[in-house]
């Protein structure tokens, strides 16, 4: 992470980065060059930290959703959460406070959060029948809700000015460029708390892998578990997308990467997924601001471009998938 802080539009020696960080954390050492201080402490450090937290959150949400709906393709995008967030964000970016009245006051992040949760609630409501949340129904409801939200989002975009469109596009592809220290505590607490809580549910998540009926026979209240997990993952996703935009692929790929390497026991899977998700997004963010310096690329472009080939290689190597 320190290396990630040192590299950017302006490269700063790792030693100087340590100096600045130590100065701020411990209060010791010289304050040093104010410009350097500003780059390291005000811009890059929160950015790298946010990338790590967002990566962890998205990856954990993906891992849980995949088990929750017994579908390896599930992630916050497939279940419609991301599209809900997009619509919320796009509405505020294009229409601002004018048309939305009170909603304008909550800003892009707030609207994205509300959008993600609203989409989550809708999928939750549509995904159940006679009080039971069926996995296939949930996925299909998520996909359908996602498409509807996407159409509305596209329609709103048609009404946007070119400048707004660029903002919209950057938001939808995700970025942690605007990271500020003030955002970090909230997101970090939500991601950490969710990861710990979900890991505690690890044993029950494992039981869910055996199938709904078998999990029931193992003493798991499957329906309640699914409801609780869905709420936690919607909150987690909403929080993360709200600050970083619609970063795709991390939630889909990182859990599989970890599964293919260490297996599917959620008590190990979830913490390691969080860790790898964090590392991955820090690296991707680093590349996004160094590949075409001093311009920046959106994260969503790179997450898939870099991750997919590696993922495919791992998929080819794995034998267990052939015999299901």
């Amino acid at each position: 992470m320190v290396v990630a802080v040192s590299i950017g539009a302006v490269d700063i020696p790792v030693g100087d980065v340590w100096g600045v960080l130590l100065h701020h954390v411990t209060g010791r050492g010289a304050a040093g060059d104010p410009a350097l201080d500003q780059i390291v402490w005000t811009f890059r450090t929160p950015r790298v930290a946010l990338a790590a937290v967002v990566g962890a959150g998205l990856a954990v949400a993906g891992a849980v959703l995949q088990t929750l709906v017994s579908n390896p393709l599930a992630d916050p995008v497939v279940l419609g959460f991301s599209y809900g967030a997009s619509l919320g964000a796009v509405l505020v970016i294009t229409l601002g406070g004018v048309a939305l009245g009170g909603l304008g006051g909550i800003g892009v992040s707030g609207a994205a959060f509300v959008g993600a949760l609203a989409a989550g609630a809708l999928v939750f409501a549509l995904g159940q029948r006679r009080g039971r949340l069926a996995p296939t129904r949930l996925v299909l409801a998520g996909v359908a809700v996602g498409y509807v939200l996407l159409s509305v989002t596209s329609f709103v975009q048609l009404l946007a000015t070119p400048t707004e469109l660029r903002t919209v596009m950057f938001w939808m592809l995700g970025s942690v460029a605007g990271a500020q220290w003030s955002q970090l505590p909230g997101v970090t607490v939500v991601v950490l708390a969710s990861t710990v809580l979900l890991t505690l549910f690890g044993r029950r998540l494992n039981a869910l892998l055996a199938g709904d009926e078998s999990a029931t026979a193992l003493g798991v209240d499957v329906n309640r578990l699914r409801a609780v997990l869905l709420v936690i993952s919607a909150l987690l996703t909403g929080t993360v997308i709200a600050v970083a935009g619609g970063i795709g692929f991390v939630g889909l790929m990182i859990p599989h990467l970890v599964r293919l390497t260490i297996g599917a026991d959620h008590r190990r899977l979830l913490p390691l997924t969080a860790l790898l998700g964090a590392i991955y997004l820090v690296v991707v963010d680093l590349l996004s601001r160094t590949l075409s310096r001093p311009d920046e690329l959106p994260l969503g472009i790179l997450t898939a471009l870099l991750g997919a080939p590696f993922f495919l290689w791992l998929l080819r190597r794995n034998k267990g998938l052939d015999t299901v």
Partner: protein
Amino acid sequence: MKLTVDQLHITLDRKPILRDVHLEAAKGDIVGLVGPNGSGKSTLLRTVYRSLRPATGVVTVGDDDVWELSARTAARRTAAVLQDAGTTTGLTVTEIVALGRTPHHGLLGRDGAEDREAVAEAVARCGVGPFADRDYATLSGGERQRVLLARALAQRPQLLVLDELTNHLDIRARFELLDLIRSTGITTLAVLHDLDLAARLCDHLVVLHEGEVVAAGPVLDVLTPDLLRDVFGVRGSTERHADGVVRITYAAQPLAHDREPEPVDQ
């Protein structure tokens, strides 16, 4: 632990599935549940492992109504091996067997000596040790069923519920599984499609036909030529051979009447 099902009625989508079902298994008994497809066997099992709550009727395991117990308490008494395979890719055999310890822990529970002991014992008893570290998805059908049975035994249950445990297995694997179940001494309620296997394994049989119990009791008393004809639509007779095994001899010709298309088993 004894199992009693009494005055059980189940209606799904306004269709009666089970009507006034009564069933008993004494401690240590192996009771076979047989009947044609769609007769309600799997539905009856669901009420026993606490997946389906009956509107009327009581299922008692030990001395308690299963719906008076918490899901976890009930699962510490009753273990089930069912047909839903789930998506068990990525879990090793040992990890699957360890799922049997799920009802013994709350959210904060960690694996202890008792868990490891129960898992090791179940692994040894079911002979799944040689492939303990392999991915479940890479196993053969017979190996998979032994792993699932080991998972059930790791629950340390006092009642076993088995749904078509021996389906799709070769004859040797079937016999091995049946011997394994017998050797545990645990009270068992088993749905079996194959009447010969049911006769071989079970002390008692309960015959379901169109949601009702039409016969119950010792194997020879139940599988009469009349019952084989009326319920299963085949001609045959049952007798105990000199080696103590009950065998069914089917006539070459099936009954002449037209059978309705078989509904899918619930």
